[in-house]
């Protein structure tokens, strides 16, 4: 069963069209919603929660109509907003218990669920301290906990990795993965970074200017674009040796697809974990130094450059 279905969903404000005939069908799992700031992500979430009416078109969440069954949707859905929303002078426990009761849980169940949920998001002894003293990462966990405390069937997470450092980001993404894999709760997560979502999500929906740009499973994305950027030094003993060319040939012989990036960077398509080993061995055998080897992060702008994909998406959005 589809978790979210929108059909020609349009939202116009007096001066701007936030959503333009958006048609998507989101299946259970972790779904990423990617778009630049102002692409219409938050507007879509508001409509899905039944808090703002759509100008045209329809949307159903968990099979319920957003226009008429908003209350029932909000009972079954959790929401984590992008902005700060935590009072600094109460503890995480007090706050999440309060929010659980606001979701309709009896007082004793609210306390029990709060203890469970805070433990699942990784808050232990610190949950009794006032939230004001928490790090950004801990605050994001509290925000996630309040969205999960009533055991929803779907959570809407608006930019959950905002403001986190790389480690915090990875922790949060891992947690989001667990929300589906272990808790069995479907997730819609927004971000303006495609790179971090494609590692976490089963399916990615890209919107821009309120229009659907692309909707595909992450496998499709990675197949087309997952590459490693490799940069090596020249051989110290023999400056005339063209290390890049030699590495290209060697990797070609190993059965990898590699090409030069124009500069000193080689782009190597990732076939699997063994790709890393092959590159390492090739670099070692050639006796050159490895400056860097990193998975290239895709930015939303790359998707915009796929003119064809855009045209196709446009078409499918009208169907």
């Amino acid at each position: 069963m589809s978790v979210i279905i929108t059909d020609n969903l349009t939202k116009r404000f007096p001066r701007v069209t936030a959503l333009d005939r958006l048609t998507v069908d989101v299946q259970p799992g972790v779904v990423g919603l990617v778009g630049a700031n102002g692409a219409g992500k938050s507007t879509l979430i508001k409509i899905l929660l039944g808090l703002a009416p759509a100008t045209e078109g329809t949307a159903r969440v968990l099979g319920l109509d957003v226009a008429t069954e908003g209350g029932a949707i909000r009972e079954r859905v959790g929401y984590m907003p992008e902005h700060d929303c935590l009072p600094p002078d109460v503890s995480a426990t007090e706050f999440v218990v309060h929010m659980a009761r606001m979701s309709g849980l009896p007082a004793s169940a609210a306390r029990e669920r709060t203890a469970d949920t805070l433990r699942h998001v990784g808050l232990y002894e610190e949950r009794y301290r006032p939230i004001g003293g928490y790090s950004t990462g801990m605050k994001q966990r509290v925000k996630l906990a309040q969205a999960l405390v009533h055991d929803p069937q779907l959570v809407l997470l608006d930019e959950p990795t905002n403001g986190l450092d790389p480690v915090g980001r990875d922790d949060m993404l891992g947690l989001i993965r667990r929300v589906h894999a272990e808790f069995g709760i479907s997730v819609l997560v927004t971000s303006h970074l495609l790179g971090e979502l494609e590692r976490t999500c089963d399916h990615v929906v890209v919107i821009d200017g309120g229009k659907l740009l692309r909707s595909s499973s992450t496998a499709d994305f990675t197949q087309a674009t997952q590459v490693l950027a490799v940069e090596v030094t020249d051989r110290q003993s023999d400056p005339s040796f063209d290390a890049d060319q030699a590495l290209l040939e060697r990797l070609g012989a190993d059965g990898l697809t590699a090409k030069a990036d124009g500069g000193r960077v080689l782009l190597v398509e990732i076939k699997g974990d063994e790709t890393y080993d092959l590159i390492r061995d090739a670099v070692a055998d050639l006796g050159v130094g490895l400056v860097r080897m990193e998975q290239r992060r895709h930015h939303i702008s790359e998707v915009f450059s796929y003119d064809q994909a855009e045209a196709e998406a446009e078409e499918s959005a009208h169907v």
Partner: protein
Amino acid sequence: MSDTAQQPPTAPRADVIHDIGYRHYEGPRLGRSYATRSLYTLSLRGSFGLGRSVKSKILPMALLAVICLPALIIVAVTVYTKLSKYPDTASYPNYLSIMQFVIAVFVAAQAPVALSRDLRFMTLPLYFSRPLTSRDYVQAKFGAMASAVFVLTGLPMLIMWIGSMLASMDFGYNLEHFGYGLVAAAFYSLLYAGIGLVISSVTPRRGFGVAAIIAVLLISEAVAGIIYAVLDVHGHSSGAGWALVISPSSLVATTVDWLFGLSGRGNIHVPSDLGGFVFLAEILLVAAASYGLLVRRYRKI
């Protein structure tokens, strides 16, 4: 997957964390009206600092003591001097008009606590992403604030009434005037809670809310008093009463006196029967308008 994780609880020690996996919630979901009632209860307790830090208990509890203490003293003196009834100028409704500044300070201090925290820390989207609607939120907050003022104003009168029975004063007379006092308390509750909450709802800054409410409640009082005095001195004593339309506490006091034919305090009273109707209508209208404004204010969040 998660079902297999359900193990019987085995009296866990406090320092051991058992990973029993994620458990789904199968219990009841009590819905909107329960959530609204919970918010009401929590907000009402919060108005007196209950369930909050010690620091936030100090002021409301001190004010509760300040408004009850004179009532206790009146009871004690009346019993000691063996009077047959409380002095008119300080009994039930009149007692509240003497203590009106305490009510004003309480509302000024606690109405911003009820609303501005949620505005300032942007917690409202969390409420409204739940079954609770903005109307439920306003209903709970308005109800809680009005109830808090009713507790504050009702308690000293309850003390006086209990005192009157212990001292075997006239039961009927005291019950009757306690009733009048409760009507006055209800008027204070609706009017002050309404004014206080409307002002609080427009500012996320608590300090600003406190100052604005104090200004509106106490300065309007002072201005009305001055206009009244000036007109009275110049011989317009009947017209002078109309000055009270801008004074919340005089409005309540004179309306209650007029409704029940009480002598009131001093010579301050409604300008005429017409004035009585106008005053009564004004109290109810201001309360209703405040509620309406709050609903409007929160609809767009």
